[in-house]
């Protein structure tokens, strides 16, 4: 089975994230970088499925030079090889552009299963899994909290507001995962050493066959016009509970007409 796992490098959630004043894009240089947390669950699921059913795991990442750190980190958890899509022309791409090039690369690699996180912590659009399924013309099995494969039949639990749906499809498919699906492994020392020798192929926009006009800041179908730091919330009242904390809280709710 050919498994492709998408890995995105994002700014560390705990760092001071901001946009660049020059072009209103994410300032990736200003913050520490890490693998998008949900992608670590996608990586783990890909590795487990390959262990259980046999097959090869390929990581795909689109991002600047520095994204190679995240690719190596993924390879130190396991897997066989990676493709790094890196090209200055990609800077500022929106979800439409990103999905176009990722789909092209994934199509070239060939796949039975594409696994990705259901959302990234920087853009938080959560549309990539649906866009990839649409572009690749394969079933969309998104928000998976459980994946089972039997021959070419794949069944997932799809997280929903009311609980979950059992959803079934035939491979090939796109699966996006939520964080309740597994517990990602830590890279072992052996894994870290082995990762250095695993092949990472670099690709440019031209290599994908996608028209350059579809990607990058100029090709994006949306643009950020302005941005501003939000003012901090005004400090409220904090009381220590000396026996009447609950009563005081009720007084507050009355004063704001909630009761």
């Amino acid at each position, binding site marked *: 089975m050919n498994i492709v796992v998408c890995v995105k490098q994002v700014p560390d959630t705990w760092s001071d994230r901001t946009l660049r004043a020059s072009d209103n894009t994410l300032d990736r240089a200003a913050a520490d970088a890490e693998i998008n947390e949900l992608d670590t669950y996608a990586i783990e699921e890909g590795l487990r499925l390959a262990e259980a059913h046999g097959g090869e795991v390929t990581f795909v990442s689109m991002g600047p030079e520095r994204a190679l750190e995240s690719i190596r980190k993924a390879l130190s958890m396991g897997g066989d090889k990676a493709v790094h899509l890196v090209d200055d022309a990609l800077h500022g791409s929106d979800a439409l552009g990103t999905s176009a090039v990722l789909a092209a690369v994934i199509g070239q690699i060939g796949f039975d299963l594409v696994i990705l996180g259901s959302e990234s912590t920087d853009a938080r659009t959560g549309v990539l899994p649906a866009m990839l399924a649409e572009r690749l013309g394969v079933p969309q099995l998104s928000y998976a909290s459980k994946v089972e494969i039997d021959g070419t039949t794949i069944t997932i639990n799809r997280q929903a507001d009311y*609980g979950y749906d059992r959803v079934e499809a035939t491979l090939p498919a796109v699966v996006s995962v939520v964080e309740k699906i597994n517990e990602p492994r830590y890279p072992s020392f052996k894994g870290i050493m082995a990762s250095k020798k695993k092949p990472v192929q670099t690709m440019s926009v031209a290599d994908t066959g996608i028209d350059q006009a579809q990607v990058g800041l100029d090709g994006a*179908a949306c643009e950020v016009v302005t*941005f501003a730091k939000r003012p*901090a919330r005004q400090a*409220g009242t*904090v009381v220590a*509970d000396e026996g009447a*904390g*609950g009563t*005081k809280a009720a007084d507050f709710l009355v004063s704001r007409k909630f009761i």
Partner: protein
Amino acid sequence: MAEILVLADHEGETVKKVTLELVTLARRFGEAAVVWTGQGGEAAKDKLAEYGAAKVYIAQGSEYDDYVVAPKAELLAWLVGQRNPALVLLPSTAEGKEVGGRLAVKTGSGILTDVVGLSDDLTAEQLIFGGAINVSSKVRTGSPIIAIRPNAIVPEPAAGAAVVEPVDITISDQARQARVLERVVQQRGARPELTEASIVVSGGRGVGSADNMALIEKLADSLGAAVGASRAVTDAGWYPHQFQVGQTGKTVSPQLYVAVGISGAIQHRAGMQTSKTIMVVNKDPEAPIFELADFGVVGDLFKVVPQLVEEIGKRTS
């Protein structure tokens, strides 16, 4: 006047509040045309009329519920082709965003998600990085696809004709690939839905156990609120995942958010920071959640919450 397509979020014939919010917003830009999939559209028509819907497209086939997302996107793409709407509005829910994503690919239009406001020239307001930064964005290609965060718009009644137009298109095999076998409902009492509720009461690790979540439910019920949880709680299995609030859970924007035994990590704040009023109960005065509190009690939740429930009971009886 141009049509504005609004994808209805509903459960059977019950219209979800976010749908009325979207209709209210749509009226500012043109004729609100609701797109209703599955059953219940006829029965819901009056409600939609009350909020100013001019039209209701009803596509009542079962395929819209039997297959994941793709049929809805196909239907919307067809309507976009037919009606050339000035704008497509969707709820910024897990499913709404996915429908929008597929629609964007089909139509080549830009999509903006988690939008909290739209100005007259269709500039969208978004809050990013856990609510730290305000962003104004615009779609510059195609009929803009905008996913609106539930509870961001106040629904306002206005008379509408809500003329029903049945739509019966053939959904392709391509869109029938991910089949829903079974719907597993894990409801927790008859509470309002988390993203729609005007009051949310959330419990964190401080609550201590699955059994103790009953205390949070009790407080919620005394206020007619929805129950939420921090990730520490859902990771521990004390409460189901769909109730998680935060970066990898739901984003909520209620009138009142009550955080009980929650420290206020950035990932949690990302999902509740835009609540209008925030109340906190935590025994640690240094907990970062107090930075957001309009009213906070430093104390043991096992003492404060029961007293609060009792006081609410007294004052509402």
